[in-house]
Structures are given as C-alpha cells and as structure tokens.
C-alpha cells in the first residue's frame, strides 16, 4: 500500500530486513505469543484519501451550529482572538516540538514559557507561576492538593458559587485523599460570609473561592481573605483572567494561590478543550507547585538561557513522592495566551474587560425590561449575570436557537430550583445591535 506518511519503499524495507537478518516483517513480531495475536484485520472504516476525508470532516463540522450570536459562558467565552495568534500556533517549530528536555535546542519553547509565567504573575499578583495545567478545574484540584500537603489539614471549604463542574472535578480528586470538602453556602448568588466565619477553624486546609463566581458575581475577596488570618489554611482564588484587566490581582487581596481557566486569552472554544489551567502561588509555596516550571540561567559562555527547573518536585524524578503526576500539560495553549497578552498589552486587556463589563451591563438593563424577566442577584458583577424568566429556561433557550441566538445556560442543569433561570455572558465582541436583537427575540419568545 502507498501512504503519504510512510516513506519506506518495498525495496528499502527489503534492504532493512536483510540488515536485521530476518526474512519478513512478520518475524519481527514473533515474540508475541501466537494465541494472543489479533489474527484478523482491525474492524475500522476503510482509509480515505485526503480530499474525501476533508469533505467528510466538513460535513461533520457542518452539523454543529456555530452561526448563532452567542451569549454562552460558564467557563468558556466568545472573546475576540486576534488572527496573529493562530499564525504563531501553526509554526511547526512550536507545535511539533516535544517537552523541552534538551534546552540547547528548545530555547524557543522555554523562553516563551518563561514569558508566560511572568505574564501570569503580573495578572494574578502571584510571585511564581507554573508552565500550565490542564484546565481551570484541575488547576483548582491541584491547588487543593497543595493546601492539603502544606497545611497537613484536611478540611477544604468550597464555595457553593464555584463552577459546578469544577466542584465535580474537585470532588473526584479529593475522594481518595485524606480530605473533607464542605460547601460554603450562598445568599443572593454570593457567598454567605457569616456562615463562612463559622466554618473556618484551625483544621481548615483551604478556602476555595471563585470570583467572579459562576453567576458572574464578584465575591468579597478581601473579606474572605481576612477570615484566614491567624490560621494556616490557604486562600485559593479561581478567577477569570480577563476580569483582571480591571479587577485587583487576587494575590494582592490575600490569595495564596490563584488559579483559573485561560481559554478567554485567545483560545478557541473547541467544544470545551483544549483549555488552559493557570496557577500562580506565593513565593513560600514555590517548591509545592505542580508540573513544569522554567527558570533563567546562563550557558557555559555566560549567555542568558532557560531550562526546566525545580524538577525534583516532578514525577520523572520523584515518582510517587512528586507534587503531582502531571507530565504533558497545555504548553501550546500557554503560548496562545502569551501571544494574546502580548498583543493586548495592559491597555488592550483593560479595554476588553471594560467593554465586556459595559456591554453586559447594557444587556442586563435591556433584558430586565422585558415583562416577566427579573434580575435575581443584587451584588456587583462582571461580564455574566443570571436572569429569572417567567418560564423554564430550557425551552426558552431552544426557541432562541431557532431565532439565531445562543441565549445562555439553563441554570436548572446545575442548581435545582433554578430551572427558570438563564445565565447570560456578554463579551466585548457583542455589539449593541446584537444585544438589541437578543432583547427583541427574547421578548417575542416570552410573549
């Protein structure tokens, strides 16, 4: 058979077999006991030539609806991604390289990660950042593991306003460890600080808070941070990196660990993956951080260079005593975020955050004027908000799709009792015209 990825010709194969001293390729597999062999062809579809394959892929892709005006959020957002990002991501030298174990021929990847770490520190106010984690949810779980190992306490206080699927991932990761997870209750879409005050004690390993939270509400981070004063428990904040264009860096408000989902920083929505988990920690937690970390050093001629460092934390050295099992992370996604943040700079990031906020504010004001629609939460919020509808949200979302809008997320999926609530996200990409159209369509659907 001919195949464009398999270069060896029949003649070359023959020469190689001769050099090995065997008569056939089959002999090379002779160590596999015959009774274990799969003695039939794999039952897979026939190979497709590239042109037909692309037609097939286009047909599959075409059965996904991506033309609707999107007000979907819940961790994945339709922010603007400059064209330049994908031009860098498609540089073969970046995307077909391995983890930079050989620094002399990996300075491109290593320097890019070093710059990424710096940008995450600048955004979050943290002292040290790692090279990336899988996504926001596993970054949160890894933060909880740091807290368990550092404090030797077992009590994790988890915000009920945290993304429900992040909470599910956290539950998975905590289930087999010596940890008890208690949920911090919420009132009016915001954590109940009085209740939290009664939960914090000397056995607390960490408080895990998301801000802006799942409902878009900004939590009282300074107030929550103060509750841990005098306790060894760690304050972990999960945040939206875009919000940090106008909101204070969580580490400056007392967070020991700042984590979050970096998809908003130029990554495609891609049906929820690949994503980018980021993590920044205070200096004293440097040697507790999971995964790759890049450091600056010098070569034998005194030139600046970069290497993977503090590797004694990692699985390939420490095996079962490593801070985490993570090996492959999301390096190319971190590169995308670096290119995004370089292009945006401090001014662009602030403007993205400001416009998302103002457009969301305008949208909420407009939508709240529709008869029967209410705003259930009062607290300060960022680019996402809940709406209470006079009808179950699921049916409304469905009807809105037919009018060309992804209206938002049915909160009843995540919070029993909120079946008539819709979670709406607005980014800087939405125009006033789209928001006005959304209002008109929703009004019609709710009539």
């Amino acid at each position: 058979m001919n195949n464009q990825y398999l270069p060896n010709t029949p003649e070359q194969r023959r020469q190689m077999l001769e050099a090995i001293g065997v008569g056939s390729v089959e002999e090379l597999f002779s160590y596999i006991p015959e009774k274990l062999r799969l003695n039939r062809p794999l039952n897979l579809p026939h190979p497709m030539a590239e042109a037909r394959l692309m037609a097939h892929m286009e047909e599959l892709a075409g059965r996904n609806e991506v033309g609707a005006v999107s007000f979907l959020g819940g961790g994945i957002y339709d922010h603007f991604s400059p064209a330049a990002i994908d031009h860098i991501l498609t540089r073969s030298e970046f995307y077909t390289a391995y983890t930079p174990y050989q620094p002399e021929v990996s300075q491109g990847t290593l320097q890019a990660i070093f710059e990424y770490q710096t940008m995450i520190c600048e955004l979050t106010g943290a002292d040290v950042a790692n090279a990336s984690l899988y996504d926001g949810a596993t970054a949160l779980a890894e933060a909880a593991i740091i807290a368990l190992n550092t404090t030797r306490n077992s009590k994790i206080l988890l915000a009920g306003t945290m993304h429900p699927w992040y909470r599910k991932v956290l539950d998975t990761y905590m289930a087999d460890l010596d940890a008890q997870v208690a949920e911090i209750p919420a009132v009016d879409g915001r954590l109940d600080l009085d209740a939290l005050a009664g939960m914090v004690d000397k056995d607390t390993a960490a408080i895990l808070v998301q801000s802006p939270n799942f409902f878009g509400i900004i939590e009282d981070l300074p107030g929550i941070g103060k509750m841990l004063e005098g306790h060894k428990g760690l304050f972990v904040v999960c945040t939206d990196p875009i919000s940090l264009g106008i909101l204070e860096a969580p580490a400056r408000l007392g967070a020991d660990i700042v984590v979050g989902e970096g998809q908003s920083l130029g990554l495609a929505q891609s049906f929820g993956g690949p994503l980018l988990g980021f993590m920044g920690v205070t200096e004293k937690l440097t040697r507790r951080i999971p995964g790759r970390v890049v450091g600056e050093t010098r070569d034998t001629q005194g030139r600046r260079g970069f290497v993977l460092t503090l590797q004694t934390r990692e699985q390939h050295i420490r095996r079962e005593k490593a801070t985490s099992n993570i090996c492959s992370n999301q390096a190319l996604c971190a590169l995308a975020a670096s290119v995004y943040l370089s292009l945006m700079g401090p001014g662009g990031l602030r403007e993205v955050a400001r416009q998302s906020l103002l457009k969301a504010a305008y949208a909420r004001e407009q939508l709240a004027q529709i008869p029967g629609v209410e705003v259930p939460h009062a607290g300060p919020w960022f680019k996402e908000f809940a709406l209470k509808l006079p009808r179950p949200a699921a049916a409304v979302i469905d009807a809105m799709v037919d009018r060309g809008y992804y209206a938002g997320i049915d909160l009843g999926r995540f919070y029993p009792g909120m079946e008539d609530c819709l979670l709406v996200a607005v980014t800087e990409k939405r125009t006033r015209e789209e928001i006005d159209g959304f209002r008109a369509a929703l009004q019609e659907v709710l009539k």
Partner: protein
Amino acid sequence: MGHPIPLIFERSVPGRTGYSLPECDVPEVPVQQLLPAGQIRQEAPRLPQVSEGDVIRHYVNLSSLNHSVDTGFYPLGSCTMKYNPKVNETATRLPGFARLHPLVPERCAQGALELMYNLEQYLAEITGMDAVSLQPVAGAHGEYTGLKIIAAYHKARGDHKRTTVLVPDSAHGTNPASAAMVGMKIVEIKSDCHGCVCLEDLKAKVDDTVAALMLTNPNTLGLFDINIAEIAEIVHNAGGLLYYDGANANAILGKVRPGDTGFDVVHLNLHKTFSTPHGGGGPGSGPVGVKAQLIPYLPAPRVVKEGDQYRLDYNLPDSIGKVHSFYGNFGVNVRAYTYIRMMGGEGLERVSEDAVLNANYLQARLKGHYHLEYDRLCMHEFVLSGKLQKAHGVRTLDIAKRLLDFGVHPPTIYFPLIIDEAIMIEPTETEGKETLDYFIDVMLQIAREAKEDPEKVTQAPHTTPVSRLDEVGAARNPVLRWQP
C-alpha cells in the same frame, strides 16, 4: 545565534499597541460605578506594549531556536515523535469544531458528538476494550482516571483492602505518581534479565491488597513481555486488575490488543500513537478504555447514541465523576479521528510494522558500536547503554549533546532506570531509511570520537543557539519570571 533574543518585555515601548478592538457602542459608565471599590485594579499588569509586527517577529524568531519534528529527526524513546499530518490541523480548525461552545443544546452539536462517539468505538476496537472515555487530556491524566475506575470497582464490590498498585521498576514515573494521587501505596516489581516482569517477584508480592498491576507492553526497553498471559493470570487470581499504559501502543496496532492479553483498563496517548502534535508539552489526549465490568465507573458524561441522534448521558450513579471541566481535549481528538479515518485499519497495521522495522534496523546497525543489554528483536524502540563510551570518560549525556551538532534530537536518556547510561531510541514509522542511515553514521562517528577525541563530545554541543546551561544554578537560585 550569537545574541540571545530579548524577552518580549524588553521590547516594550510605552504607548505602543498591538490590538484593534471595536468602539464601545453602549452607554459609557465609569467602571467605578459598577465595581466594588476595594477590588478595582490599582496598578495595571506590566504586560509588554508592542505592535503586532513586534509580536510576530519575536515569536517567529523564538520558534527558530527549537528543534521539532518538522525540522529534523526526533528519535526520543517512548515519546513517539512521528510526523503530524497537516490535514489534522486543517480539520480541527474548521469553524464548526473550533467555534463550538461546549454548552450548546445537544441538537446543535450532533457532528461533534458523532465524532466523539465514533472515535470511542475505533479506539475500543484498536485496544480490544468494550468502552472508551475521551475525557482525560494527557497520558498521566488517563492513568489517574483508569486507577480511579479500578479503585471504584473494588469499592463497589465491598473489597476495601485493595490499596496497593504494583509497578515494575522499569515503569514511567507517571505510574507511581498517578497511583499516589488516588491514595494508593506503590509496590515495585523487579525486572528479569529481559527487562520483563520478574514472575517470581510478582508472585511474592501479589496478595489480596493489590488493586492493580500497571504495565507498559512492549515495556520501556521496547521488548514485548512474552509472559503477559501468565502475569494476567497471577494478578487476576489474586483479585487484582491489569492496567495498560499505552505509551508504547505504536508497536502493536492491528497485531495484538491489550484487551485480548488480559488487560482490564488501558489509556492511550493520542499525541503519540495517533499523530496529534506534542505542542512543546501539550495539549495531548489520554483516552481510557475499559472492559465491560468497569463501564459503570467511567467518567461522566458519556456520549450515547439513540437512533441516529447523539446525546451526553450524565445519569451515571456509579461513575468516578468528572476529571475535566468539559469533555476532554476535543480539538486534539478531532485530529486523532482524522488520522484514523485517513489510515484505516490496514494503514494502522502498516504503521506498527514500519515502526518496528525501523527500530530493529537501527538496533541491528548500532549494536556493535554501543552496548546492547538485551540482544533480541525489539518492538518500536530499543535501549542502548553508553557504558562502552563511559570507559573513555564520555557519558550518555555527552553523546546526547553531541547529536545536537548534527541536527538530530537526542534519544531519551537515563531512562529506564534499570539500564546504566541508557539511550532509548524510537525512530517511528514516518522516517525513511536514508534518515536512519544518516543517524547511524552520526552515532558511529560519535562512538569514534569518544575513543579518539573525547573532548569534542564532552564539550558538545558546539553549534546550537546556546551551549550547555547551568541547570544546578537555575535550581539553586530560581529566577522564574522577568523583573523590570
């Protein structure tokens, strides 16, 4: 490259911008009116202030400092650095995939769900498993998920004493690290003289506390463990399960399936065997496959097919739960799906044949010049030892660095730990004989240099953008970010 490339921050010119954003077309309100006073950002993050041209030039220049599959041979053992087909990249960037939000109504994502469903079926067929989840996003994440499933299975049967995981001494470091994350104790099993599981040691250590044995087959020496049926019997008789680390699956496609050799759980690295790019350290994808009795414990949600419609099923009471925010690295899974449809079953079998042929050819040609601990036919990779060269004061690290001068990425070195001065070579099937011959010539030259001019090797590399870097200093005085 005499002058290091400045950091992007060092290119910053105050007032310069690299973005274009729309005018704000809604009423302007001072943000102070909308945000809590104590949480408004006081100091802007010190991000670079650069133009788009600055950014592009910076990252393009950085990229030129990398070795990559697309620029040269990359025989990195156990990493399967094969060619990454370009059609994969084009397919995953189709707007219908790239712009799809994970929480759209399911009727708006039928193409994506069908792709996931079918990819799961294909991977189940390839591995001989009954069901697959695409949710884990990396090999280690797959190991973690697989071990969680195993733990859940034992617990559901009321078998609470199973708290140990057996791991061979030749295993990847992620195996014990993953076991530790599910709260298991690790017991190491010795290798026999072929680098395979020592049956006596296994029998001595297996008992009713064993949850699972984790195995890579072919193992990290590139050798197929011929005792696999007996190993499976020993572990199963003791009530344990068998976990297959799919890092080396590139050797076995269409030839032998883990599910037919006694394995109960597998993970695959789609970024190895199924041609998706490594991205300089991810994103990858680490799907997990299981036998029928373990299906109830797979992560939620699962893709199900009803008639000709696909949906996500969350109603899985025995599931281990979620291990990812959404459904895994979908964009990577699109690439692997594309590859499998391009190759078909026949093509995948040829992949393994050529991968094994290439490895054996290199082994046959190099073994007189470098020490080969286990001299038998290998699978897709093999491990040399640099101990002949060590006698001349040349270490394996030096050989690796000298290869850089010839435009070849070094093999994996000092792994597995059971071989002194290990050099682990995996050529993959996408390299032609002339590339292999070039590599052989270079390796022979380095072997000669080790004898005749060892300093040339120990001082290498001589031609790379930077020379050897002070890694000890980097760890001792960590500088982990730029400071203005």
